């Protein structure tokens, strides 16, 4: 189960689990956004490689137009995934303060 909302002037809030069954819907949502896009991951409990693919595709598209993707409130599971995949070197990531 995953919900996504926000965008434009507000952060995009992802809640739930971003797995292979949800990737296409999240990609379609993010494809509509431009500029510097902030993803609030405070309620994102799970991210698989399908989700990494969505983030990479979105970040590359935004970079090409002078924007970027930044992630906030990233929990331990997500930090591990970003670290092991090297995404912590290509995305701006702000850890969960909790």
């Amino acid at each position, binding site marked *: 189960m995953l919900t996504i909302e926000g965008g434009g002037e507000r952060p995009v809030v992802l809640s739930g689990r971003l797995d*292979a*069954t949800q990737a296409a819907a999240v990609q379609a949502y993010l494809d509509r956004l431009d500029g510097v896009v902030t993803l609030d991951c405070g309620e994102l409990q*799970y991210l698989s*490689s399908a989700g990494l*693919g969505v983030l*990479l*595709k979105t970040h*590359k598209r935004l970079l090409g137009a002078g924007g970027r993707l930044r992630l906030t409130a990233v929990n331990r599971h997500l930090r591990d995934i970003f670290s*092991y995949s090297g995404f912590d070197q290509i995305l701006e990531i702000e850890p969960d303060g909790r």
Partner: protein
Amino acid sequence: MSERACFARRIDAIADIFAFTASAFARLGAPDALRTEVDFVLEELFTNIVKYGRGEAPVTIDIVPISDGVEVTVTEADADRFDVTRAPAVDVTLPAERRQPGGLGLHLVGRLADSVQYGYSEGERCSRIVFRKTSAAPAPGRDNGDGRC
């Protein structure tokens, strides 16, 4: 004591797999803190089978408790040989401009599981992947042992 379930080769079966791991962990008394990583490894292995496997038989998942964790076996009948422990290396140091989506799943399986073994039976055309996840030290990477069918 163990838990077993079979899943159709469809991506939307992932939700059923997650429900199975939740109930299995509860019944087995396995550490719930490990479940996210176990779900991750299972999703990557299962989606790999759905994407690239040519068979139609359901995929069987067994979970047994071990000291401080679980041992999970993914059995694919009617399978071609594909050793997941020998997947091509991924360069995770590339900048975003040179990255392409995909290819990270099995790399991450090797990082998140304590050990991964692959076995294949030519006669039965059966592939078996056995991985362990415990609350011991961080995952050291892959174990290219023999997870014979």
